[in-house]
Every structure is written in C-alpha cells, then in structure tokens.
C-alpha cells in the first residue's frame, strides 16, 4: 500500500484527550435523546404534573410542611429531582444496552477512544439529557407552584451532581446488563424505590426514627435535600455535608465505571 502513495498519510495525532472523538460520542447520544424529544421530555413532564396534581388534591397542597413552605413547594423540587435521576439513568444505561445488543458497541470500542473518554462520552451526554429534562419539568412546575430560588448555586450544583451520579450509575448498569430484562429489573428494583423513597414527598420527621437510616443511606435523599434547599432555603441537615457525600459518591462511581470499561467487563471477549 505504502508504495502506491507518494507520501504515506501521516498518522493522526492526538493530544492527551481525543477531543473530537469524545465530542462525536457525546453528540451522537444527545442527538439520540432529542430525536425522541416528545417522548423523552413529554413523558416525564406529564408524569411529574400528575404527581403534583395528585398530591395537591389528595393531601391538600396548600398546607404548610415547614414554616413558610407549602406542601406543593416542598414536593415540587423532589419531583424535578426524581425525573432527572430517572432520565440520567435511562439515557446512559439504555443506550449502552442498545449498543451492546445491536453489536454497535464494537464501533465505539475500536475507535481511538480511551476508556475514560468512552465513559465520559456516555455519562456526560446522559447528564445533559437529564438536565434538559429537569429544566423542562421545573418550568412546568413553576407554572403551578410558586418557586422562589434561594440559592441558584445550590440548585445548579445539586442538579449537576445528581445527574452525573446517576449517569455513572446508569453506565455501570448498562455494562452489567446482558438483556433488556436486566435493565428493567435495575430500573424497577433500584431506581424507582430510590426515587420514591427519597423524602421527595414528605419530611423525614414523618418516618419512624428506627427507619430513618433507610432514607439517610439513599443518595437521592441527599440530592433532594440539597436541591430543595436551593429553592426554600431550608434543609433538615447540613447542606455542605450533603454536597460532600454526593461528590464522593459520584467520584467513586466514575472510577468504577472507568475501571469496568478499562478491563473490558462484558465488553471484550
């Protein structure tokens, strides 16, 4: 081959990070998300509004859960958070399972992408989709519930942390799942309970003291706490500690998913 070409093409040079490759993977997954925009954004939007309506009608949204905070104001941030973690999980895990089952994962593994870049491509695109979903749900909620923002930094920071945390978690589940059945088992038995039993709908005081640990070990509980603090300015625990827990957990899952891709867990024969 080399004899025929006057000058052999010079091999492509990459810096420390293959930015173009990373961007391609990220961009592909975000495009995938928006291709089904109505379903991807409309589904969570409708179910969030239903939750709000049902709690409002069944429990009386106007009554105060804490001084100056109505029940609706208390649960709205929780509902936004739940739809975000669900979207982050789904957009990382489902795409990896889909790519694996369709055999397309080979195209990604054989591209000049380092394991860290593959993980970043999937997780960052899932987190982006989650933040878009969260923004849409939040906008819809604010039409019905008065949501003053106490601390924009807390709102953004906790949204980002939760989106990333569950994007990495989704990446790990996507790598682990062999079939769609595995994926939906993880969704039903982990994501759904973590989201619904996160204290999004009631203050921790409503729970008997001997069961509170179930909530305290749930990362979504901390994410909801911090996120809600960003709106109401009230938290049941220390917000800084909550942020630290989430950051550490996100880092741990990021490292784990990086290791899994690096050793080729269920990816390479």
């Amino acid at each position: 081959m080399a004899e025929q070409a006057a000058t052999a093409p010079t091999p492509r040079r990459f810096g420390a990070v293959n930015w173009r490759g990373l961007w391609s993977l990220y961009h592909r997954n975000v495009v995938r998300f928006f291709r089904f925009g109505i379903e991807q954004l409309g589904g969570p939007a409708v179910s969030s509004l239903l939750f709000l309506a049902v709690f409002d009608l069944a429990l009386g949204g106007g009554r105060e859960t804490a001084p100056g905070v109505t029940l609706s104001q208390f649960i709205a941030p929780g509902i936004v958070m739940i739809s975000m973690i669900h979207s982050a999980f789904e957009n990382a895990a489902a795409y990896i399972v889909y790519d694996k089952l369709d055999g397309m994962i080979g195209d990604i593994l054989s591209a000049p992408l380092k394991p860290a870049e593959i993980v970043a491509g999937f997780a960052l695109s899932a987190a982006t989709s989650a933040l878009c979903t969260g923004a849409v749900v939040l906008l819809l909620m604010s039409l019905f519930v008065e949501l003053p923002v106490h601390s924009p930094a807390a709102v953004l920071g906790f949204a980002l942390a939760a989106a990333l945390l569950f994007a990495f978690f989704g990446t790990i589940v996507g790598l682990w799942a062999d079939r769609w059945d595995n994926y939906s088992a993880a969704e039903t038995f982990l994501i759904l309970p973590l989201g619904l039993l996160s204290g999004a709908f009631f203050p921790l005081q409503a729970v008997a003291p001997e069961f509170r640990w179930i909530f305290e070990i749930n990362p979504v509980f901390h994410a909801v706490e911090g996120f809600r603090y960003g709106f109401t300015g009230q938290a049941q625990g220390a917000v800084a500690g909550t942020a630290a827990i989430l950051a550490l957990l996100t880092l741990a899952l990021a490292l784990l998913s990086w290791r899994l891709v690096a050793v080729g867990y269920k990816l390479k024969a």
Partner: protein
Amino acid sequence: MSTDMDSSSFSRTPPSPRMIGAIHWRGLWTLYLKEVRRFLSVSTQTLMAPVVTGLLFLAIFALALGGAGRQTAGVDYIAFLAPGLIMMALMQNAFANTSSSIVISKLQGNIVDVLMPPLSSAELTLGIAGGGITRGLIVALAAGLGMWVFVPLRLHDPLAVLFYAVNAAMMLSLLGIIGGIWAERFDHISAVTNFIITPLSFLSGTFYSIERLPEDWRFIAHFNPFFHLIDGFRYGFIGHADGSLAVGAVVVLVVNILLWAVTHRMFVTGYHLRP
C-alpha cells in the same frame, strides 16, 4: 381447494379439510396461550414491577400523610387508597399487554402469523383481549395480596370487586388493541400511554375522593368510565361509592360493548393491519 394440491397425485384420497365448528376452540386457545406466555416469560417487568410500584405508592402516601387519623369517605385514607392503587395497576397492565403485543407484532412483521390462521375477527379479539385481561387480573391479585400485608383490606362486596375488576381489565385490553392497531410506530403507542392512559388512571379518583374536586370537575368525572371503574371497585372493599353504582355499571357495560364492536370491526376491515 385442497384437491389442487400436489399431494393429491400421490395419495388416492386427498386429506379431508379440517372441520371447524362455529367457534375455532383450538385456535382461540392457542392464541390466548401465546398472549399469556408472552408476558409470563418476562414476569419481572410485567408482574413484579407493577406490584413494587403499587407498594411504593402506598408507602409514600402513608408517610406523606404523617401517620393515621386522616379519613376519606368514612374510612382511613390508606384503606381508601389501596383499592385505587390495585385498580390503577390492573388498568395500566391490561392496556400495556394488548397494545405492546400488537405493536411489536406489527413492527416485527409476525402479525401475519396471527392474521393468517383460520381465526375469525371475533376470535382474534377474544384471544388477544383474553391475554390482557389475564395479566390485569393477575397483577391486581398480586398487588392486592402485597397490600393486604400492610393494609387491612376487607371485602365488603366480592361480586362488585369481581365485576369491576373484570370489566376494567376488559375495557383497557380492548383500548390497548385499538391503540395497538392504530399505532404505526412505537412512539405512537407510548404517547397514548403517557398522555391518555396514565393521566386518566391517575386522575380518576385513585388517590382522592372526587368530592375534593371543584363542582364542574365533579360533574365531568361522572362521564369518565375510569372513574366508575375505580369507584365501583373501591365500593367492593369499603362499602362506599362516590357516584351511583347503577349508573356506573351501565356506563361500564355500554362502553365495553362499544369497544368490542369497534375492535371487532377493525379486525374485519383490516384497518392498519392489512394493506
């Protein structure tokens, strides 16, 4: 027609064509069995998931209320809520079963294997709806048993429970068939699920007595068949109905007869099924 077949040249007497009576029982049973096995083979998604979801809803509402004491329709709120949640699970799963079965068959092209056999339109409707009804009732039973562990559920009127459970499963199964036949892509049917079935099953009195609704809305609720299904089913447990049971039973039966007719007609004309 069978005399034209190649086999006639080899055998003296051509095989006599199979005789099918007024109802093709074996074909109907086979189709029904296929529909049931389809959801049983992924029972984590089709049976376990709805039970877990129902129990989680029960838990968060119990906790959000901050303990006992709150009464709705003369009973503890949790006793009021549990039948609603069972009914919600039943309806969503009956719909999911028939709609997904038809859409997947159409997309994968194996719908012809259902349309080709000597099954009449009525048998197709009955076989496919039967699968959805079975899933709905199994989910309801499992969810009911799961909740019974936590909530004292008493049967006030078993006949009402049975009547409304079967009719709800039938109504949603038929709606699922209609939706599945109409849908041309998967997002069509998930749009119907997300924007019509889920909202209706949430907002038709599952979680609250319609007395909490504003006057105009309460009036509209009486035209909503889902409301009558949930209300009548709940009456079977707690002995109190928000609406009139007689009106409810008539509305439910009329809607089901109409849906049978529409579904049957769709199979007869081959709407969105045959080119």
